[in-house]
């Protein structure tokens, strides 16, 4: 395991310390908890947004704490949902009296832990609502299963719901727009290499030199299939086919695009992917309103990437364009 770390047991704690040391103007850490909140939390009268999950997805989620996005990011152990008391502390620390929206990625663990935290907060009289992000089209959707995972599309929820809250929306408003984003967001990813959970010390799986995994989960869970390594354009065609046909996105639609690197894949390759994405959308008559390329929801040092599309309307466009000032995403 080649990592720049000290003790695998302390990675989350030390990472959060290093983050707070880097961005005191944006964030602070709650004493005794792996929770990052805005430096000026709670913001009186504003609906507060809390997200989180296992660590290893940096900059998600704490990197998006700041003006126009989240109020708190809760950091579990690497790839393990945080516990309810951590989430509960986050809720208490950021509630500014207008209620708290929990943005939960749809994993059994996240759902249960955040739910329990919500119950604890409500028992103390805090108004809590929650939304479940489930943008990953790699996973079959069905009433009889857990449904789809939440992956990189979650960042669009943070951005747009955050802008709504900043603009003075009520908890109901903010929840409604978050749900609109979720309804219109689809993603899918792939991996070229596995990643190593520091405490495990070895990769979750192995891929041969000529193999890649399609539909990879962001926790290094196996994907939907393993194939020979494809050229960038062929690969993007495959992912886009799944994504576009899901909603479906149609000619005349306007979308936001996110190319999300999973960790080790350089910007060079992400841009090569985006080139093909923009070609495909053009061919289909779908226009690109705004594009985000970079690392938003990573899987430690996994090589690979995901593509996300968000179908926009006027409200979503305006909120997507709104100012944001966080360590990992800024917009003037």
């Amino acid at each position, binding site marked *: 395991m080649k990592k720049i770390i000290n003790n695998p047991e302390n990675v989350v704690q030390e990472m959060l310390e290093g983050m707070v040391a880097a961005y005191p103007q944006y964030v602070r850490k709650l004493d005794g908890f792996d929770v990052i909140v805005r430096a000026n939390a709670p913001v009186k009268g504003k609906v507060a947004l809390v997200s989180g999950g296992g660590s290893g997805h940096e900059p998600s989620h704490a990197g998006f704490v700041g003006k126009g996005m989240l109020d708190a990011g809760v950091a579990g152990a690497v790839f393990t949902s945080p516990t*309810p008391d951590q989430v509960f502390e986050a809720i208490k620390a950021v509630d500014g009296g207008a209620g708290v929206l929990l943005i939960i990625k749809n*994993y*059994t663990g996240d759902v249960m832990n955040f739910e329990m935290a919500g119950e604890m907060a409500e028992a103390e009289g805090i108004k809590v609502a929650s939304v479940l992000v489930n943008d990953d089209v790699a996973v079959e959707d069905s009433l009889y299963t857990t449904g789809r995972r939440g992956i990189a599309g979650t960042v669009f929820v943070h951005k747009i719901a955050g802008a709504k809250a900043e603009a003075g929306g009520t908890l109901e408003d903010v929840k409604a727009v978050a749900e609109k984003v979720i309804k219109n967001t689809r993603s899918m990813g792939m991996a070229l290499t596995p990643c190593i959970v520091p405490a*495990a010390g070895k990769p979750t799986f192995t891929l041969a030199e000529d193999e890649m995994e399609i539909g990879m989960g962001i926790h290094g*869970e196996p994907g939907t299939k393993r194939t020979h390594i494809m050229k960038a354009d062929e690969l993007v065609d495959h992912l886009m086919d799944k994504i576009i046909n899901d909603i479906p996105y149609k000619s005349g639609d306007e979308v936001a695009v996110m190319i999300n690197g999973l960790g080790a894949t350089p910007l060079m390759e992400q841009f090569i992917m985006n080139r093909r994405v923009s070609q495909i959308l053009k061919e289909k008559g779908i226009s690109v309103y705004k594009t985000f390329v970079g690392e938003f929801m990573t899987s430690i040092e996994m090589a690979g990437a995901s593509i996300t599309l968000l179908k926009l309307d006027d409200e979503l466009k305006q909120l997507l364009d709104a100012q944001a000032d966080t360590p990992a995403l800024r917009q003037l």
Partner: protein
Amino acid sequence: MAVNSAELIEIINLIAHDIQENKDFLTELDSAIGDADHGINMSKGFKAVNEKISTMGDKDCGSILKTVGMTLVSTVGGASGPLYGTAFMRAGQAVGAKKELDFNDLPIILDAALEGIKMRGKAEKGEKTIIDALEPAVEVLKKSSPVDIKLMEEAVKAAKDGVEYTKGIIAKKGRASYLGERSIGHQDPGATSCYIMLAAVYKAIHDKNN
């Protein structure tokens, strides 16, 4: 058989010990169809439990079990934390202020645990989860009364069969469900940890009886 608070703590420590011993095995099972952390999560939780209950010898059994549950909830995280945490908390509620437990408390405890897991995780038997090990064991324990060590052995055997059974089915709940068909052929980590815990309890009681 009668188990007082101090002995209950010993039994829980034995569970903790066996989970610890199987840490890598559970994590490996989770690598195949999950995210390679089940052993790590459980071992972290039971290490905390170990410390937390060490001074509770004078408390009632319900309080001890509830403490185990709360400790698991606040240290494990992931899916297994809330599930096993709720299970132990419900078991503690079911037991109440008792300072001694006997064989006949076993179906009550495990039934409460099972109900807690079902409430929290909204899963049923046959979905490749903890329930596939726990529910068959509870069924055995509930089928005749009074409960004795033989029935308990049978219950543990049923849990083991349940673990075997998970190999053949598709996961419908939890992280493994994302794999669809590809989850077939792998044994469920949570069902396995549940069996390990039940087996630890059986072993403790069996050794005590001999």
